[in-house]
């Protein structure tokens, strides 16, 4: 790792490269060998890198990866649309995903033309989206997700969670714990935001009354 980092640094700084064995090249040949290369189930490794799945052991990640679905999307293909009913959570395995809210009015330009589509966020590798659909009974998607490149997603859906609960309750519990963490974090930020907004409103009200008094 450190060797590669050094190389990377020196490439970035465009300084001279050390005259040593090119491990990157060696690694390439090692990985492309017919014995190690073909077994390539990299999904557990990928899941290991995801922060919210930290409490899973390697074996649990392997079992979890078996009940996930790899979905391939081409550039600018819809993953799901706003207001559709959704049943699952996706991890970005490869590529980019745009999250778009359609027909959202921006409050600042009230008189202006309504801005139709707002790209809220672009999700990269290791990001996840759609976690509410896994928990709600009939979940309506809040936004549209569009693949912004050749994208591979890992999806886990309600039926898979049901199966996991039946066969591997510990893993199912950990998964639901992870999703709860995601949602709790989101709720926390929303609450913070709400507090700020309330504070702003109170300020504005006070200013309004001052203006009236004057």
């Amino acid at each position, binding site marked *: 790792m450190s060797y590669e980092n050094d190389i990377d640094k020196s490439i970035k700084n465009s300084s001279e490269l050390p005259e040593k064995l090119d491990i990157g090249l060696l690694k390439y040949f090692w990985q492309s060998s017919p014995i190690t290369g073909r077994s390539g189930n990299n999904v557990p490794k990928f899941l290991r890198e995801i922060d919210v799945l930290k409490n899973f052991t390697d074996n649990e990640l392997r079992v979890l990866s078996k009940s996930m679905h790899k979905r*391939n999307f081409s550039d600018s293909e819809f993953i799901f649309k706003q*207001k559709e009913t959704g049943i699952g959570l996706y991890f970005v395995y490869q590529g980019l995903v745009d999250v778009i809210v359609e027909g959202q009015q921006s409050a600042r330009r009230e008189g202006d033309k309504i801005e139709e589509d707002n790209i809220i966020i672009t999700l990269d590798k290791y990001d996840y989206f759609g976690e509410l659909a896994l928990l709600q009974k009939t979940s309506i998607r809040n936004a549209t997700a569009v693949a912004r490149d050749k994208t591979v997603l890992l999806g886990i*859906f309600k039926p898979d969670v049901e199966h996991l609960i039946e066969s591997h309750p510990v893993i199912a519990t950990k998964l639901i714990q992870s999703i709860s963490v995601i949602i709790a974090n989101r709720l926390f930020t929303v609450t913070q935001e709400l507090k700020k907004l309330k504070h702003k409103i109170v300020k504005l009200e006070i200013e309004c009354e001052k203006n009236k008094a004057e």
Partner: protein
Amino acid sequence: MKKIRQNKNTGELARLVFFFSLFVLVAASLISLRRIAAPLAVSYVFFLILGPFIPRLIKMGLSKSTSLIIIYLGFLFFLAYPIVKFIPVITAESQNFTRYIPKIEAFVKDKYEDIRFEVKKRTNYELKESYAVEAIDTTREALTSFLIYIPKFLTSLLEWVFLIPLFVFFLLKDGDALKHMILQLTPNSIFERFYYLTHQFNKQLGGYIFAKFIEATIVGVIITIGLYLLDVRFFLLFGLIAGITNIIPYVGPLLGSAPGIILVMAEYGMGTTTGGVLLLYLIANAIDIALVFPILVSKIVDLHPIIVVVSVILGSQYFGLVGMIISIPVAAAFKLIINEIYNEIYSARFR
């Protein structure tokens, strides 16, 4: 936005066309190849009954292959044991039963004569004698055609004895892989909906079949034990008939109780035994209707009684006995799909 819509590529369309044509092709070939389709359907039923036990064993810490082997051996035992143990008894009983047929015929004719006399006395309307004769003739014809059909049935049964355990084993072993493969082929634009619908349907079907299986067993056991206690001949045969016909909704219990009651009336006359048997069938069906059905079956398949009756009639008209049995799951599938379309088209307005 426009760019996205334009780019919604032809690849997706090709995938949709491919997926649905594959679907139609498989369905059409299964319908035309009945020799494969019938044992496959039966194996699928067994698979739905046995499948839920696998996760339970895995939960206990066994590996998937070990739990598969345990369940499969159990299945073979439960399949083989009744065949070895009960089939000779039941064959002997049915052979004995054929000897009773003339006696029953005479009894029915006799009763009919009595009824004719009563009707003549009270309403002065003379019933034709040919009614009873015709009824007996049709029954006898049906019975002989059934007897002729038996060898053919036995050869297919031999085939089934090999095919069904094979199919069940591979469905249990590779069912998940097959599911993953089908889902891999599912086009992106319909993936979530397709997955959810098929899952929902499989769950309902599995639950329904499991519940029906339990229900038929309960009714069969009650009738068998009751007839045994009442010391009626052929109690095992009649218990089996009652259990099997119970699978058919509404009409089944009537069909199942008819042979037993008629035989008892012919054999013992209008005595206490006949009364006991009538009461037994009534109690068994009352338990079924009042306790087993509402607790087990109706919670799983939530269909209106009218729809149940209509679908059973339609099923019997187009596919005979098999149609009567499969009518409820098929109706449930239609209900699921129609519900989904309704949600898609109508509730969209309220979002």
